[in-house]
């Protein structure tokens, strides 16, 4: 046995190293306050380990990055824990590095001969910021893509080289596949490698500095085992904190772990994009400056701050005053960062625009999840196409863009879309009995929810409704309800299918009554086109598609069409305002026709 030992030591020097470890000393009593460097190494290793396992699931690529993260988050056992642990672990590393730096300054431990120890600490903070920045993009959800895009575009501020730098970072003129492959290489190799080197250098410099002051300190205690035990204890505590963060959104349900937003759209911009908390202060700071001077808050002033940090050990040579100055500057910076971050949070909370964009982003994320579950997987074109082809996701966007300048979509739900200036009917509940009933109600038809703001306010229809349906008797009311049921059944809304089936007899009766309308409207065999919209198939998919395409067609309003744009006058998408696909999405959304789990 002994022989084996010596052989091993002879060849590897292992015993010597072990001995050195056992005899390592710390100045003074064992104390948790000395655990920070150890903890930094531990946190780094933890990131390396979780990162490695995440890498086994990651696929960089504009149509596969988000998808692979989604898979890890929702399909892989424990995947959400892995992802959350790496997410919070990375931020915690930054916090630890920051605390280490601040602690060093407060204790005065950055002064000679520990300059190099301090400088590596500064670099540790900077590189971990870089690591967060490059890692954030990899999830490739709306926020990570758009906020990284803004940050990367800031490179363009640098005179002369900026535009080229942006292309190099993005891997081309736009964000896409190559941005992801680049950022992945930077994050997993360059940043992680730099951190490893810095941690090793820090240990080396700290040793040299300790050797220099060895004789000044009177009491040295062994590192092993007491200090080591304390260090490990601190690491366990750190793990507990990370565990609590991982579980902070619950341990069950789709919200657990770290949020994954809707898949990024490289051709669009997420309006609610905001940087991660670590950059929030800088974001707030840059907002204080006018556009022409952006170079200052984003490159010049942060650059000066970094230089100032590097100079601190020399400033400290000026004596107590110098040290006090350093402490003051550092605390001031921290306070400013916290204050500015807080300011951004407060402003955003009060900002309707921001809140609406956030809510839409969340809805898209949830819908993407739903659609993937319904399909049983993600098609090869990526998850974004699932969303882009979904009426529930696209309807509100198209409506806001093309319809909401005149029409409202307001029914007291959180999906309400108010009109910017109501001048046409409220389309909430389109085709339903409640909605149809509004047309046959003498009060409602003249309200802003129907014809109130249109040229038809005092038209024949309004007059007819007033004459026919004012102060109804009980049985007349019943007749009107039959007409409503029959007309609404023309729409064949999916949500009303059961109701329509149940009431088929009443609907048949109502159909007979609708014959009264054929003086103006064409309905089934009666009446003719050209005076008022056709009632056959009123609100059905075909009918709706056709009226959206061309409301001025004789089948609808003809030449009496009031301001409703003609979205698709020809059969050729290229010549129309809205494509066939967009009209279908709008129609299906208005009619509540989409897949639901």
């Amino acid at each position, binding site marked *: 046995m002994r022989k084996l030992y010596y052989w091993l030591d002879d060849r590897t020097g292992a015993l010597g190293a072990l001995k050195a470890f056992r005899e390592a000393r710390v100045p003074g009593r064992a104390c948790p306050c000395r655990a920070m460097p150890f903890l930094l190494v531990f946190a780094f290793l933890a990131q390396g380990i979780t990162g490695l396992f995440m890498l086994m699931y990651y696929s960089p690529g*504009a*149509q596969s990055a988000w998808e692979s993260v989604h898979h890890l988050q929702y399909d892989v056992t424990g995947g959400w824990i892995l992802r959350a642990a790496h997410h919070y672990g990375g931020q915690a590393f930054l916090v630890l590095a920051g605390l280490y730096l601040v602690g060093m300054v407060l204790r005065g431990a950055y002064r000679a001969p520990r300059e190099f120890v301090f400088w590596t600490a500064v670099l540790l903070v900077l590189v971990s910021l870089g690591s967060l920045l490059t890692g954030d993009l990899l999830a490739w959800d709306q926020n990570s893509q*758009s906020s990284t*895009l*803004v940050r990367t*575009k*800031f490179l*363009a*501020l640098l005179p002369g080289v*900026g*535009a*080229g730098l942006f*292309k*190099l970072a*993005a*891997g*081309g*003129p*736009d964000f*896409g*596949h*190559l941005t992801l492959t680049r950022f992945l290489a930077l994050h997993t190799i360059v940043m992680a490698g730099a951190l490893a080197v810095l941690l090793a250098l820090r240990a080396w410099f700290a040793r040299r500095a300790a050797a220099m002051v060895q004789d000044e300190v009177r009491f040295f205690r062994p590192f092993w085992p007491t200090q080591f035990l304390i260090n490990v204890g601190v690491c366990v505590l750190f793990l507990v904190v990370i565990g609590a963060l991982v579980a902070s959104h619950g341990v069950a349900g789709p919200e657990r772990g770290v949020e994954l937003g809707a898949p990024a759209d*490289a*051709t*669009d*911009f997420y*309006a*609610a*994009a905001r940087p991660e908390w670590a950059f929030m202060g800088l974001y707030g700071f*840059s*907002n204080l400056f*006018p*556009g*022409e001077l*952006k*170079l200052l808050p984003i490159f010049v002033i942060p650059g000066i701050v970094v230089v100032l940090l590097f100079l601190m050990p020399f400033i400290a040579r000026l004596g107590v005053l110098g040290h006090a100055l350093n402490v003051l500057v550092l605390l001031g910076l921290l306070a400013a960062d916290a204050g500015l971050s807080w300011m951004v949070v407060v402003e955003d909370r009060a*900002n309707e*625009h*921001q809140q609406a*964009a956030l809510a839409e982003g969340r809805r898209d994320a949830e819908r993407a999840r739903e659609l993937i579950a319904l399909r049983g997987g993600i098609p090869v074109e990526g998850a974004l196409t699932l969303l882009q082809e979904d009426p529930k996701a696209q309807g509100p966007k198209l409506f806001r*863009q093309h319809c909401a*300048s005149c029409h409202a979509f307001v029914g007291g739900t959180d999906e309400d879309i108010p009109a*910017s*200036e109501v001048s046409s009917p409220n389309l909430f509940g389109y085709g339903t009995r409640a909605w149809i009933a509004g047309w046959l109600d003498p009060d409602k038809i003249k309200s802003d929810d129907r014809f109130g703001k249109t040229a038809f306010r005092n038209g024949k229809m309004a007059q007819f409704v007033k004459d026919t349906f004012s102060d109804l008797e009980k049985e007349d009311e019943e007749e009107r309800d039959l007409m409503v049921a029959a007309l609404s059944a023309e729409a064949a809304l999916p949500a009303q299918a059961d109701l329509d089936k149940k009431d088929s007899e009443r609907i048949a009766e109502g159909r007979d009554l609708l014959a009264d309308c054929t003086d103006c409207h064409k309905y089934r065999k009666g009446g003719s086109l050209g005076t008022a919209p056709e009632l056959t198939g009123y609100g059905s998919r075909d009918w709706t598609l056709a009226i959206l395409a061309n409301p001025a067609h004789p089948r609808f309003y003809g030449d009496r069409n009031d301001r409703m*744009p*003609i*979205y698709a*006058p020809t059969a050729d998408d*290229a*010549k*129309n*305002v809205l494509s066939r696909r967009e009209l279908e999405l709008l129609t299906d959304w208005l009619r509540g026709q989409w897949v639901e789990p």
Partner: protein
Amino acid sequence: MKKPPQCACCGNKPAVGRGPYRRGFLSKLLALALGALALAVPAVVGLISALNPLRVKGQGGRFFRVTSLDALPEDGTPRRFPIIADRKDAWTLFPNQPIGSVFLRRTGPSEVKALAVICPHAGCFIDFDAKAGGFLCPCHMAHFDLDGKRTDEQSQSPRDMDPLEEVEIRDKRDVYVKFQRFQTGTPQRIVEA
């Protein structure tokens, strides 16, 4: 004692010569230079391909049909339209995809003005804010009027919104715009290559 194994190459010959071994300045220099050069070879090989994105051009500078004249409200309210073209992301080709957007606004019966949607500040997409009757960039809250002029006392944007100067109405109805993108962040307007 065992003899050390023989080296097939030099046969472990003892160094000959008088006095201590001399390290010539030249060999030091040569060693360093060669070492650096050797490392530089893989680095350069890598860098050449890493710099490739500098050569890749964006899709600006061409005329695209954006929409038809009827799609533009007569009252001059701006509308946002996508520019549809084949988009290429490294190796993937996306046929008929939005590659960008423009705001179009009618300024006369057959006169149309076009503005880029990309914010001159840092590249967010600007929204039209109907309530305020102007444009708003959601990222850092820069406001612009209908002509794209900055309206904030202290704007986040270094310049007014970028106009796309060349707009053509062909066949009396089709709106064509020469699509261009501009560098963000600069007070001057620099067309992106």
